[in-house]
């Protein structure tokens, strides 16, 4: 792999006034043209990582470790101004909550125009045509009407597609998509994923794709990182991890997927127990209280990351290379 676009090394993040870190010792890399899927339970720190990748954490947050974009440390060497420029030009996100990411009192068309900053010196008609084309690509009906509307006049899925269009118009080197298709129906989702796959090839950038939907990971991602309670528990290629999960959490998570259950049931499988509270983390393995395969050692000692091959690892005592 050539130099990674994004490289995280031992990143820990603590929010101001939070009792403990929301993300702990996470390391991974995303190369040019690669798409990394991040999955994990709700509250495991996925959006926190996404915010950190944009240099957008609340004031007073504490970040340790290094987070490099094209070799430059986002938290060490860059000024606020550099970061703002980076966010405007090289890194774009599709936020988990599209409504709060858009300006509620600005028409959609104008907001989209701001995103295509590369083209700001082109004539207005050309910029407008580009926006219209992009809105058609994300399969919005009446793109010209949509441009005149305000965010609250759009449905959840339409908003989500507007934010996808915005991110694609920005032509970023790094695209961070936080659950971009949760509000889309199956057919629209399939189409949008197709568009994103195409965009990936033309943009040559790297993509980080946060999702809960394993079928989306399968369709779009090359690699996958599984988070649990703020820790990276398993990583590898999509085929390796989904086909042959090594960490007990990954296994349990996949078993919960209703899409993998043949017969309709009223009682869906879950992972028993709850995620430990931030300030009440077990001393040993973080998954130990809920782990079906836990052994005595797990309670006493936190497992290290075991390498299982090139860029493939899992953090569990039972995993042996």
């Amino acid at each position: 792999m050539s130099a990674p676009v994004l490289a995280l090394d031992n990143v820990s993040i603590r929010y101001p006034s939070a009792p403990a870190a929301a993300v702990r010792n996470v390391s991974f890399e995303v190369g040019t043209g690669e798409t990394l899927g991040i999955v994990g339970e709700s509250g495991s720190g996925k959006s926190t990582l996404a915010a950190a990748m944009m240099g957008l954490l609340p004031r007073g947050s504490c970040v340790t470790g290094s987070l490099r974009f094209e070799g430059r440390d986002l938290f060490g060497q860059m000024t606020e101004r550099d970061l703002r420029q980076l966010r405007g030009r090289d890194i774009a996100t599709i936020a988990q909550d599209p409504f709060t990411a858009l300006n509620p009192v600005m028409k959609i068309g104008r907001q989209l125009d701001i995103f295509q900053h590369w083209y700001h010196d082109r004539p207005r008609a050309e910029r407008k045509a580009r926006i219209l084309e992009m809105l058609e690509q994300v399969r919005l009906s009446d793109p010209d009407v949509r441009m005149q509307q305000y965010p609250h006049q759009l449905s959840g899925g339409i908003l989500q597609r507007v934010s996808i269009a915005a991110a694609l118009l920005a032509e970023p080197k790094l695209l961070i998509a936080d659950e971009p298709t949760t509000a889309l129906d199956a057919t629209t989702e399939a189409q949008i994923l197709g568009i994103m796959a195409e965009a990936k090839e033309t943009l040559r950038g790297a993509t980080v794709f946060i999702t809960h939907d394993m079928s989306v990971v399968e369709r779009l991602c090359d690699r996958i990182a599984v988070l649990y309670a703020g820790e990276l528990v398993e990583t590898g290629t999509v085929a390796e991890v989904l086909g042959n999960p090594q960490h007990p959490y990954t296994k349990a998570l996949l078993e919960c997927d209703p899409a993998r259950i043949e017969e309709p049931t009223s009682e869906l499988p879950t992972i028993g127990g709850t995620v430990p509270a931030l300030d009440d983390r077990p001393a040993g393995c973080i998954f130990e209280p809920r782990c079906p395969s836990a052994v005595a050692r797990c309670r006493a000692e936190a497992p290290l990351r075991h390498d299982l091959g090139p860029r493939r690892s899992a953090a569990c005592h039972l995993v042996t290379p």
Partner: protein
Amino acid sequence: MTDQTAAAPRAVKAERHATLRRLLGTPTGAVASLVVAAFVIAALAAPLVAPYDPNAIDPINRMQGPSAAHWLGTDQLGRDLLSRIVFGTRTALYIALTGTGAALGVGMAMGMIAGLGGKILDSALVLLNDSIKSLPLVLFALALVTIYGASVPALIVIIAISMAPGYFRVVRNQVLVLNNADFIVAAQSMGASRLRLAATHMLPNLIGPILVLIAMDIPAVIGIESGLSFLGQGIQPPQSSWGNMLSEGYTYVRQAPHIAIAAGLPIVLSTIAFTFLGETLRDALDPRRAVRT
């Protein structure tokens, strides 16, 4: 690696007091709050704080430099400068508060009408406010003063007219946003009354940006008052006002430069203090404000 959390308390609790804590937690915020508090106390308790009667003329001690008896010295009529500043604070804050208060009232009313009323009304009000904003403020103020004469009410009217568009914009945008916000609809879906919607959901979300604007506007108002008074078109002597004092000090700047300096001091200090207060308040009130660590 950056770590600024050393002082951060453990639990997420007490977020209620977090605004205050965030405000006083930064050095600039704490100092600005202190200075502003000092001005307010000086204004409220002027007769108690001021060592002398601000208008007591003392022909023997004219244009004296700072001394133990007169900390900041005396002016061309022998009046104690410190006392005049203290009473000038009263004038300045009175005008600032009534002026911004009136601007807030007018701007808020227009903003509510624009936000809740129909589209035509909205467009008309936006146009009106944009036109006011584009008027050259000082010329406008001088014109009004020449027509109606210099007086405190005239000053307040000038300030209210020139500041109202700012409040109008903030309130209108906020109302437009809130009107369609999901959490407002959610409260409606639970059967919340109009009163409850306004009091528990709308107002708390409106108040933050308004407070910030007020803090930011006060120095501007003080500037207007001082400026007009300096030009002889504001507060009329002998009432103490920072602008008057500056203007008098300017006349004698060669013989007694301390008069001008003493008069300029509170203007500069209050402007800086209120501006910083506004800025820290903005950060403190919006805990979401995303800033790198």
